[in-house]
């Protein structure tokens, strides 16, 4: 068949929440005069959409905010709902929520490392080009991404916008056969993840040490994913309910995304911040593999983020396997939701960083107001700060193309959603 009409494959507009980026850079007399990262990020509307909604609709709706980290949105929301309605999870439900979350880390990090970040460090424009020289590396990325997707599907029925979570646990307990098959896949993936840690550290990563504040959830006895207090490298430690006493959001004229600051200063959330703050909470095996890379954590080099992601993949596979083979009874409760006017909070570590939710519920048990602070807005000021330092370090007299490429690499290094945006980075330089 043939056609002269121009065609393209249509894909969901919902994924547009991943945004679009542009960088405006003004250099005057060898100094940066203006550096503005522009992000178009529409998910704020979701907070309004949630008003008047009952708990289950909230859990299903927030999964649609992001096609890459729906589990993070669901678990942060479920956590707040369970606090609001005084619902306690069984040990099995609690553990399997963590396994579910591990799936998201694995798939998101594997995608970012292999398909988005690695081509930058290896000198390719796209992973398609990279695949010609490094087919086994790309294949490993696809395999690990598949493991993460399978874990999400095990509990969420599907890997994108899963539907498995309800207040108190999950709608369905996975079949034993499916769990056994999943365990086998995790065992197969574990050595791949270990090799990935070594490989990521062997990449020609720029040496660019910077001062920044890390922030992440922290638990004393395990690597924090979906519980804990917020800890910062500047020495703060506080409950998630006190979030607004420390972090504030504001608008900048050049961006539709909100900027978030920690006591008026930029800060970092995400894998490197987590590893920097919680390295000692990783299991001994994971720490040992990480140490063999020769990289010392905490690290001030933002480009060590790719190594941090690899370590988190290694950990997530290890942790999911541990929990699935722990022989827990698959007990779940089916709690009744007793409405009460209250305010509740949820917070978890999305692949890209801390994701904070706040909900006010009416006496009828529906949402009166919602506030969601995604990692993207939290890292935005830090990215601009990083760009300022990184571009100055490589020399502002470099060609526009060199500056653009380095800027893209810096931005992509942070976060898959912004990576998406910066595939189209338009650099406007005024000299």
């Amino acid at each position: 068949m043939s056609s002269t009409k121009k065609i393209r494959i249509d894909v969901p507009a919902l994924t547009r929440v991943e945004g679009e980026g542009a960088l405006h850079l003004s250099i005057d007399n060898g100094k940066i005069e203006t550096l503005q990262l522009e992000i178009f990020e529409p998910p704020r509307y979701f907070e309004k959409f949630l008003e008047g909604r009952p708990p289950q609709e909230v859990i299903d709706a927030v999964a649609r905010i992001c096609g890459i980290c729906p589990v993070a949105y669901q678990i942060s929301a479920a956590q707040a709902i369970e606090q609001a309605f005084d619902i306690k999870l069984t040990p099995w439900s609690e553990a399997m929520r963590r396994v579910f979350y591990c799936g998201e880390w694995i798939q998101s990090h594997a995608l970012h490392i292999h398909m988005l970040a690695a081509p930058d460090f290896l000198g390719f424009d796209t992973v398609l080009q990279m695949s010609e020289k490094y087919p086994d590396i790309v294949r490993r990325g696809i395999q690990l991404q598949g493991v993460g997707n399978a874990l999400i599907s095990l509990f969420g029925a599907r890997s994108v916008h899963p539907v498995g979570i309800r207040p108190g646990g999950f709608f369905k307990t996975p079949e034993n056969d499916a769990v056994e098959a999943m365990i086998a896949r995790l065992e197969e993936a574990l050595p791949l993840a270990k090799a990935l840690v070594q490989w990521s550290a062997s990449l020609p990563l720029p040496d660019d040490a910077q001062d920044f504040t890390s922030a992440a959830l922290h638990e004393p006895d395990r690597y924090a994913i979906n519980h804990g207090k917020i800890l910062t490298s500047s020495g703060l430690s506080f409950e998630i309910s006190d979030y607004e006493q420390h972090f504030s959001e504001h608008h900048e004229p050049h961006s539709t995304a909100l900027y978030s600051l920690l006591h008026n200063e930029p800060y970092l959330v995400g894998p490197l911040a987590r590893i920097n703050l919680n390295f000692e909470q990783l299991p001994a095996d994971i720490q040992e593999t990480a140490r063999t890379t020769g990289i010392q954590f905490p690290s001030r080099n933002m480009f060590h983020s790719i190594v941090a992601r690899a370590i988190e993949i290694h950990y997530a596979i290890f942790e999911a396997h541990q929990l699935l083979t722990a022989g827990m009874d698959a007990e779940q409760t089916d709690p009744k939701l007793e409405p009460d006017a209250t305010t509740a909070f949820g917070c978890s570590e999305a692949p890209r960083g801390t994701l904070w939710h706040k909900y006010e519920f009416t006496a009828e048990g529906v949402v009166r107001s919602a506030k969601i602070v995604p990692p993207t807005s939290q890292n935005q000021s830090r990215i601009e700060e990083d760009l300022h330092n990184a571009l100055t370090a490589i020399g502002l007299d470099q060609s526009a193309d060199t500056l653009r490429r380095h800027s893209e690499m810096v931005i992509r290094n942070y976060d898959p959603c912004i990576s998406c945006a910066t595939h189209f980075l338009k650099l406007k330089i005024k000299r």
Partner: protein
Amino acid sequence: MTEILVLGIGSPFGTDNVGWMVIDKLEKIKNAHPERYGNLSLHSLSRSDTGILELLSDYQYCIIIDAVILNGDSFSAQDFRVREVGLEEIDTCPDKFSSHGFGLGATLQLGKAMNMLPGKLEILGLEIPAIWENGMDLYLEPLTNIAVDAVLENSTNDQ
């Protein structure tokens, strides 16, 4: 019977849901006639990035159903067609409306480079306009029926 993977790609909502509609209809037919269509492995997907490559590599034959945007100003019923799309026709440029710039085209090109595509791959494009107008919903039913017939015919011919 050859196991055939059938993927309906798109959003579950809006006009991009035609791929899902076709899969829903095929599910009903498969359930009614398992002896005839039990070899169809049916999936609705809202993301078409590299995550689908593992799935594709497990099959020898795959049919992908997706919406294709028609460019133009006005449309009539005959413009809503199902057409077979060649791999080379799909825009492989980074797509700002897809996950991380990975659209179906880029994913399939990567799959081709990695030898992860099934030996037989057919892409059925259901043509719909970029701008939707009131009343056009009436066209979706016959359009998706054509796609269902095409899948059943192609899969039967492969026996």
